[in-house]
């Protein structure tokens, strides 16, 4: 058992996500920074889809009531065991009675606590991920609260030697200004040429409305091409006939404040989506904080697929490293 002494501000159980229900309006949820989440599971020898804790901005304080093997990955929210700093991206052991806590966030926005065996919560539609808006999945469908008790599961596949550390070259670093790669579309034809360019040229500021559902940005108004309202579309120029929203798609309701839709977002609707964050950079999006800035860089599908291959290569190397040091 792990006892939650302090919950942090939004600590939820997440795995790879609830895939396969998008068409009935169920978003996947799941770890927002999938790279860090997967690396965490590799460091503790878990199966790929084992459930971890996703911690946002402020770490929880957890008392372990049994010995455990853990790893903390993601942005930099420095962990401590019994008030002594311990490294991130490293296989750690924690003893019965020890307390895991965290310092203030230094960079990034989220960390993942992987525990050998994973966190034992009921599987719902193939996933242990929490979807807080619908109050389902994870630990009672909600973020953790003080007094909760988490049970360690049986999702460990192999044991990894204590002290196994991921080399620096595989650890992303985050500044306060970010570049996020997007593919332009699906409905970018609705923007004027000038606004399309402004979207890519501007440094967008992340507003306080930035969470697992989506990130809202401030910059300047974008303008849409004049048109006759098509059948089934709303009257606002930013409306189109309803479509499925890709995860990572960016819409601009009324031309003000673009919103990037993320893991817990609505799955479809009638706003023109002007660009979509490439899947690998969704992990980076998860590490962006309110009040930081983002510049969107347009890439083509080849580059997006190459980026995906590169992340797979990195995770394969991490897998070799963790399984080779048994």
């Amino acid at each position, binding site marked *: 058992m792990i006892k939650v002494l302090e919950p942090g501000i*939004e600590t939820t159980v997440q795995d790879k996500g609830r895939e396969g229900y998008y068409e009935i309006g169920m978003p996947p949820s799941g770890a927002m920074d999938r790279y860090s989440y997967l690396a965490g599971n590799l460091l503790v020898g878990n199966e790929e889809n084992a459930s971890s804790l996703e911690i946002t901005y402020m770490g929880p304080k957890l008392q372990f009531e049994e010995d455990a093997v853990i790893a903390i990955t993601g942005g930099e929210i420095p962990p401590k065991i019994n008030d002594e700093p311990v490294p991130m991206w490293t296989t750690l052991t924690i003893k019965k009675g020890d307390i895991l806590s965290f310092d*203030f966030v230094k960079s990034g926005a989220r960390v993942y606590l992987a525990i050998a065996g994973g966190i034992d919560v009921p599987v719902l539609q193939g996933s242990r991920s929490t979807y807080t808006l619908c109050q389902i999945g994870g630990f009672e469908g909600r973020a953790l609260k003080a007094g909760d008790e988490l049970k360690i599961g049986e999702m460990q596949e192999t044991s990894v030697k204590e002290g196994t550390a991921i080399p620096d070259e595989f650890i992303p670093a985050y500044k306060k200004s970010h570049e996020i790669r997007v593919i332009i579309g699906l409905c970018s034809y609705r923007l004027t040429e000038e606004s399309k360019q402004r979207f890519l040229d501007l440094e967008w500021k992340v507003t306080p409305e930035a969470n697992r559902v989506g990130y809202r940005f401030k910059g300047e108004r974008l303008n849409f091409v004049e048109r006759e309202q098509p059948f089934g579309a709303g009257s606002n120029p930013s409306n189109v006939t309803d479509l499925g929203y890709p995860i990572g798609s960016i819409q601009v309701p009324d031309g003000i404040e673009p919103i990037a839709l993320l893991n817990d977002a609505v799955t479809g609707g009638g706003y023109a989506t002007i660009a979509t964050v490439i899947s690998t950079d969704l992990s980076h999006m998860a590490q962006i904080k309110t*009040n930081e800035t983002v510049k969107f860089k347009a890439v083509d599908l080849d580059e997006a697929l190459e980026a995906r291959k590169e992340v797979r290569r990195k995770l394969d190397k991490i897998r070799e490293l963790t399984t080779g040091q048994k």
Partner: protein
Amino acid sequence: MSDKAIISPLPGVFYRKPSPEEGNYVEEGQQVEAGDVIGLVEVMKNFHEIKAQESGTVESFLVENETVIDAGQEVAKLK
């Protein structure tokens, strides 16, 4: 370095009062104890209390009410 500070662990909109109709949590010159609430930060559609990490006298606030602040930003100086 005798100067101490109150730091917000979170980014978001900083408020000095619990609600628009009420007064400030603390005024400059006032004594605070560790754990006293000195403001709120609104982020991810929730409000979180910002507490003094140590005791002292609030010398000055370094951010205005209702401004957006960074995680780790000093919001007030303590003496």
